[in-house]
């Protein structure tokens, strides 16, 4: 598969994935499946802000959903999910638009930096501009003026994918809801604060403090092995509270890492200069990419292999893409329902 075909495949599959996820979370669309996992809303928003640049309708419906469900979101986590300047800039644009539409929104934009002097087109392919949207232009992105459709609904709290929102309704929008979500859904027998920090996007010290509070409240158990504090949630008790069976709790995925890697793969494969490079240099750039994402992939349980030749590097990249698509339930793999 050449690099443009790889980009098309990734873009098409990721747009389909994002539509299906958001359709289950309150965006006006018909879901084609019922996801068995608990989604991470902020990780999915930052991911969709990139993926939906190829699908303007999805982009606009996401903004409408954020406007309708803004009290359920954490601006701190949105920023924590950003992995580069493009993420930060897209997120700033979305927050600026929300602030413009609802000036008292808690997600209101706090402008971190001035917009770049040369604004760039938001959508690919570029859309004809009438009057550009002021909020997006202020963050350096050119797009037609956006009015909310007001079609979005609150997420169904009983759907597995929406466990995060249900926990936020119970525990408030903050670190405790995220820690409990991970502890309830992970297959690991125990989790330490370091892992929880990476899974939730909060600093380890803050996670540690939250775990201490949850332990005192006897809804999380802590035990020490060597120098390490390990934590488990009382799944039967939490399941009973949620009106579920312990083995019916949604599945866990390391969404911040998975969606960040997918975003990087998508952006990497869209670089126009890759098409004019030699086969070797293109494979080497793929090697750079795989090296850069190997930590996140390992955290998400997806091993990478060292390569023995440039052809091997390219094969590894394609294999990683397919494995990631399979993990998120798109591509050739059927999703469990």
């Amino acid at each position, binding site marked *: 598969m050449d690099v443009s075909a790889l980009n098309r495949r990734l873009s098409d599959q990721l747009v389909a994935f994002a539509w299906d996820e958001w359709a289950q979370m309150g965006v006006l669309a018909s879901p084609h499946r019922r996801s068995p996992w608990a989604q991470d809303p902020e990780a999915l928003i930052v991911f969709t802000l990139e993926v939906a640049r190829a699908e303007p309708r999805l982009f606009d419906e996401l903004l409408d959903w954020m406007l309708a469900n803004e009290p359920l979101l954490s601006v701190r986590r949105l920023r924590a999910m950003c992995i580069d300047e493009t993420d930060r800039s897209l997120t700033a644009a979305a927050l600026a638009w929300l602030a413009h539409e609802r000036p008292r929104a808690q997600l209101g934009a706090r402008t971190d930096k001035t917009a770049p002097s040369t604004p760039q087109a938001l959508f690919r392919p570029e859309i004809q501009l009438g009057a550009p949207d002021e909020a997006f232009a202020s963050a350096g992105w050119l797009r037609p003026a956006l009015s909310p459709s007001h079609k979005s609904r609150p997420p169904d709290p009983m759907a597995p994918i929406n466990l995060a929102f249900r926990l936020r309704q119970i525990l408030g929008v903050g670190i405790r809801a995220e820690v409990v979500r991970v502890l309830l859904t992970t297959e690991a027998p125990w989790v330490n604060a370091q892992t929880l920090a990476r899974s939730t996007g909060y600093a380890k010290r803050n996670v540690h403090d939250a775990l201490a509070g949850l332990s005192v409240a006897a809804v999380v158990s802590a035990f020490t092995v060597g120098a390490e504090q390990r934590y488990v949630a009382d799944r039967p008790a939490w399941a009973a509270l949620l009106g579920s069976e312990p083995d019916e709790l949604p599945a866990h995925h390391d969404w911040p890492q998975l969606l960040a890697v997918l975003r990087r793969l998508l952006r990497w494969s869209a670089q126009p200069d890759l098409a004019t490079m*030699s086969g*070797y*240099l293109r*494979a*080497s750039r793929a*090697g*750079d990419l795989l*090296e850069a994402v190997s930590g996140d992939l390992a955290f998400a349980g997806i091993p990478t292999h*060292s*390569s*023995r*030749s*440039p052809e*091997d*590097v390219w094969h590894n990249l394609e294999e990683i893409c397919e494995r990631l698509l399979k993990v998120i339930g798109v591509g050739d793999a059927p999703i469990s329902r």
Partner: protein
Amino acid sequence: MSTSPIDSAQAASDLLGALGEQLAARGEHYTLAVVGGSALLALGLVSRATRDVDVLAIVNGDELLSAQPLPTALAEAAHTVARDFGLADDWLNPGPASLLELGLPEGFAERAQHHDFGPGLEILFASRVDHIHLKLYATVDQGAGKHLADLQALAPSERELLDAARWSRTHDPSDGYRDELTRVLAHFGVDDGRLGP
């Protein structure tokens, strides 16, 4: 990390071509003097596999400069090639750089064969005659094995061996070296009486 051998002239050319591309992509250009197994392979003088490329010197105009340590940009480009081809990280190394300090055979640079590997890299492969010098010295200094095998593959004439022997004595004038040199020359049927004192 595997240590995939460089087992053909094509394999050596592929690696050096990749290194040239990496250097060009970084806006760098180097000219390197290369000796040893990879040079012999590239010149079609031997067919044994090797695991590395020995850099004798960095060439700057008419000057041969020490390659020890490798310049940062060159080392980084070599590291990337190692990753891409599954090679040991020291596949490009300045192992023989110390030879430069004691002097190379007269006319080394003029006899070297120039090969371009794109806009980022030019290689001066040491000539057959110079490899006879270096391999004779290595055989005497380090013992038989691959160096003796390479020397035999180069099929040196008596005169070439004697020239190489005289040069090698400038690197090691000791009696012990002379005794071992006599034995190696005898192996090739050369009487060291013509070598001089």
